[in-house]
């Protein structure tokens, strides 16, 4: 686990898989959920986004993926994302998961993955049955340890497996930027370990942003951390730097998670 140096140098905008957020603002009915956030995530980074409830973490991800209307600028691989419809942003290689695992419960694991792989399919391919297992799907089944469950309905999977299936769907979708909203919530300890290692492997040639509350998980797997508070960036850096930041300690006062070795399994 090689943590980046203190600077977390802003990536040059033309970098193939760099995310560059500038002065992002999201307002709902007069309430400003995200209030001028600047954020740079370089390719290969595994960035954790933390902050108290209501800090604007999920809203930030919603804005990047086109779900929440926002002002400012979000550029990925040099392209402006704001103003594009959700499915066009997805086609630029950006994928996300949700706080509650969202899979197609009435379809099998295999069908879920196959759909995720197919946004570029032609009409004639769509109108035919699936004859062979696409390579990416087979690989994702292996990676997420779901091969034995491929013909089960996704709705019958255990909670942790559903979240793995979601990650698998992002893999076959072949996204360059993954935005994961609490991917290990409700997972058992070994599952967390496995997920963290999986994320590390994925982040080798992609950009990964993880929203997470679990501080054990963060300490073990984050390469860099951004702390949000009240819609703004409070602190940014390595895990050590962020922990040492007095402003972060102040915000987390009474929440021993960051400072004490937390048993964060609520």
């Amino acid at each position: 686990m090689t943590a980046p140096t203190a600077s977390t140098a802003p990536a040059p905008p033309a970098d193939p898989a760099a995310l560059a957020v500038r002065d992002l603002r999201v307002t709902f009915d007069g309430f400003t959920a995200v209030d001028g956030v600047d954020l740079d995530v370089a390719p290969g980074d595994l960035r954790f986004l933390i902050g108290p409830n209501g800090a604007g973490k999920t809203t930030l991800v919603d804005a990047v993926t086109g779900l929440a209307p926002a002002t400012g600028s979000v550029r990925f691989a040099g392209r402006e994302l704001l103003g594009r419809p959700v499915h066009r942003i997805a086609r630029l290689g950006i994928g996300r998961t949700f706080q509650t695992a969202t899979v197609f419960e009435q379809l099998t694991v295999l069908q879920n993955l196959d759909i995720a792989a197919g946004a570029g399919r032609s009409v004639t391919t769509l109108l035919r049955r699936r004859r062979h297992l696409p390579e990416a799907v087979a690989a994702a089944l292996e990676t997420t340890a779901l091969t034995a469950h491929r013909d089960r309905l996704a709705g019958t999977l255990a909670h942790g497996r559903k979240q793995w299936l979601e990650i698998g769907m992002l893999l076959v979708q072949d996204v360059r930027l993954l935005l994961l909203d609490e991917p290990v919530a409700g997972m058992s300890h070994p599952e967390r370990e496995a997920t963290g290692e999986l994320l590390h492997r994925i982040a080798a040639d992609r950009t990964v942003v993880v929203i997470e509350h679990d501080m054990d998980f963060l300490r073990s797997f984050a390469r860099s951390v951004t702390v949000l508070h009240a819609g703004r960036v409070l602190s940014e850096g390595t895990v050590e730097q962020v922990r040492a930041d007095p402003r972060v300690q102040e915000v987390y006062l009474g929440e021993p998670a960051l400072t004490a070795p937390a048993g964060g399994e609520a």
Partner: protein
Amino acid sequence: MTRSRLLPLAGFALTAVALFAVAPAVLSDFRLSLLARYLCFAIVAVGIALAWGRGGMLTLGQGLFFGLGGYAMAMHLKLADAGPDGLPDFMLLYGTGGELPWWWEPFRSPVFALAAVLVLPMTLAALIGFLVFRRRVRGAYFAILSQALAAAFALLLIGQQATTGGTNGLTNFQGFFGFALADPLNKRMVYFVIAAALLAVLLITRQLFHSRYGELLVAVRDSEERVRFLGYDPALVKLAAYTVSAGMAGLAGALFVPAVGIISPALIGIVPSIQFVIGAAIGGRASLAGAALGAIAVAWAQTTLSEEFPAAWTYFQAGLFIAVIAFLPGGLASLRHHLTRRRTRATRPRPPTGTPAAEGAPA
């Protein structure tokens, strides 16, 4: 695998034998012509199974497309009866000044009329779908909108008495592409055409159900937002199913005309549009056989029961509909599924149910 492939094949073979051999052999000409009418409703129901059962779009206004197909066919038959340069009989009665309205003219051509039977409803459905699905109108709003359109179309037809026949509709057809409709043999031929159309529609829809598109449609039905994040435009996915189901309703309407001998606003307004849906709902909206058989059974029950108790039928139908929606949302076709599930649940020890957090077994 082989079983799941062979069973439906056997089902199709059985249906074909029943439709082409058994029914014509055992049914009187009168009953056979009734069956022809029911089969038309079954074709509509198959389209509803696609759009509603798989696509989640409650199409409460299929009468609109049924009517478009029906009127396109009826206009051609009227013109063919009238002969070259002739006027349909009702126009002579109500008087359009001895002139054929310009939009009737192309329907003299049998090719144009046959194409219009599919193209008109499908184009209109594509247009409606484009406007509606883009704006993310769904659920009850979509259902009410589609029903309102069917009602508006019926009103429009009633208002244009001189050019559409008004409330009377178009009726009293003599020939069907050169065959006299009074001849019982030709009536049988019409029945066979309808039976073949139903089989074709069943095969097409089955292919759609089992294709990758069919899986995608279910995904859109269950989680439209999630599909969007995978890079698809769900509006287009729904649009395709809606358009195909409109084409099926149009085809059914067109075949209904020679089989029953009339198309009128009363056959395409709100009440018939709801009846199309009821058949599919009772039989099972997500199941092809369920929807088709449900439509036939409901239409048959309507004929039989309304002969006996004319006033009670509407209430009975409504009661049946409510009972199915409340207690068996998957329709009668889901009964088997419920039963087998209960049996396996009884034989297999139930896995301990816990909170989701506790359930994740170590990998």
